[in-house]
């Protein structure tokens, strides 16, 4: 009965016969690597079956985890977005706090190094006019501030107090057109007067044309003006030209970045007036 059934299905019989022959041939032939073809084909076929099974399983798993199991994800997403925004705000606050801490630490170090009676102050306002380079600080006569007290920062000289009030003071920046300070070139000890030029740079005047000056030299306060303590950094010489009247025409780049001024120290100790070398 079974044989009769098979005879009614010649296609099946042909497939079986072909398979039988292929298996028979494969069992006798080796591949280039020396392994029996039957073994290689069987392993290769089965590995494809395994791969296919794994693909189906992965597909079902991805379908489940990517689509079906997403209930509640929208609410979770919203909550996470809010949390992210809060964290971003907090991060900005922490960053600002860190910068402020760093700035105050530098100020404290300067205070200890300078060994002067100083008062820390915060810049609360800038000048309303570009013609006058001033800032307002949050300390005034209440903290012992007086006119012509020097104002410094960790980077160097900032300016002087020109208008103190009870709880605030106006500070004339060194880059103001009307500001000046006694300066000396640290390398050669040649003295001069550093003046603001109004454009953000400084000029060093009255430096004899015969003196040794070159770009890159550091200019510090000389202390002869009675305002700024001696030895604080003003800036570095940027350009040296031949001036009129036998003097150099020296351009100085300020050490302080006046556009990013936040905390300063006001020197309450009056500067002792230094007598220039050679003067009686």
């Amino acid at each position, binding site marked *: 009965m079974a044989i009769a059934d098979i005879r009614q299905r*010649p296609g099946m019989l*042909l497939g079986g016969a072909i398979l039988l022959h292929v298996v*028979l*041939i494969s069992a*006798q032939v080796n591949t280039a690597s020396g392994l029996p073809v039957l073994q290689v084909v069987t392993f290769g076929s089965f590995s494809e079956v395994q791969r296919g099974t794994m693909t189906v399983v992965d597909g079902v798993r991805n379908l489940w985890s990517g689509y079906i199991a997403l209930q509640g994800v929208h609410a979770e997403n919203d909550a996470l977005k809010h949390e992210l925004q809060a964290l971003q705000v907090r991060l900005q606050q922490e960053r600002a706090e860190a910068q402020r801490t760093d700035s105050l630490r530098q100020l404290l170090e300067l205070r200890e190094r300078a060994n002067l009676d100083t008062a820390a102050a915060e810049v609360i306002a800038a000048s309303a006019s570009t013609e006058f380079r001033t800032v307002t600080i949050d300390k005034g006569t209440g903290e012992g501030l007086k006119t012509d007290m020097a104002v410094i920062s960790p980077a160097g000289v900032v300016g002087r107090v020109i208008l103190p009030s009870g709880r605030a003071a106006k500070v004339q920046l060194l880059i103001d057109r009307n500001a000046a300070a006694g300066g000396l070139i640290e390398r050669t000890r040649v003295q001069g007067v550093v003046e603001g030029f109004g454009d953000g740079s400084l000029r060093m005047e009255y430096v004899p044309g015969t003196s040794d000056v070159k770009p890159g030299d550091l200019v510090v306060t000389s202390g002869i003006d009675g305002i700024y303590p001696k030895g604080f950094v003003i800036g570095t010489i940027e350009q040296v030209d031949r001036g009129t009247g036998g003097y150099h025409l020296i351009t100085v780049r300020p050490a302080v970045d006046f556009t990013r001024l936040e905390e300063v120290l006001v020197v309450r100790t009056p500067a002792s007036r230094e007598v220039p070398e050679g003067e009686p």
Partner: protein
Amino acid sequence: MRTAAAAAAILIALALQTTLAGLVIRGTAAIDLVLIVVVYIALKSGPVTGLVGGTVAGLIQDALSNPILGIGGLAKTLVGFLSGVLATQFILNGPLPRFVLLVLATCLHAAIFMGLYVLLDLRQFPDPVPAVIGQALGNGFVGVVGFQLFEWLPGFVDRRRAGRFLKR
């Protein structure tokens, strides 16, 4: 009875083929008697019997003379099956259709046989076309003559007997 006749035909063809193995043209036997018998079985009995006959005959032939068992068997299996299918679809009683069928069967057999050997890098067949054509024509001619004789001989014997009986 029919199966026994087919088996006997295959065995005779195999015996003859092994004794006529000296007739060789460029590495390929000029006449494949076993193939002719397989085609005849398929013509007379249909695709299934042709398939079985081709399988048995091919495997025995492989066992007797070929290094890989199954390649000749596969070729003859397919030839037997397809010949049987053609026989059920077309009228293949005349000499010319049978000749064409034998030529096609030989070409298909050679293609499968040589193709598998080359594919498996077991043997090369330099310039096989002339040999295959020669074998196809030889199989066609011998097969057609053999088929006619085989079909004509029983009737001829009966007529001779009947004639003798009438003379008496």
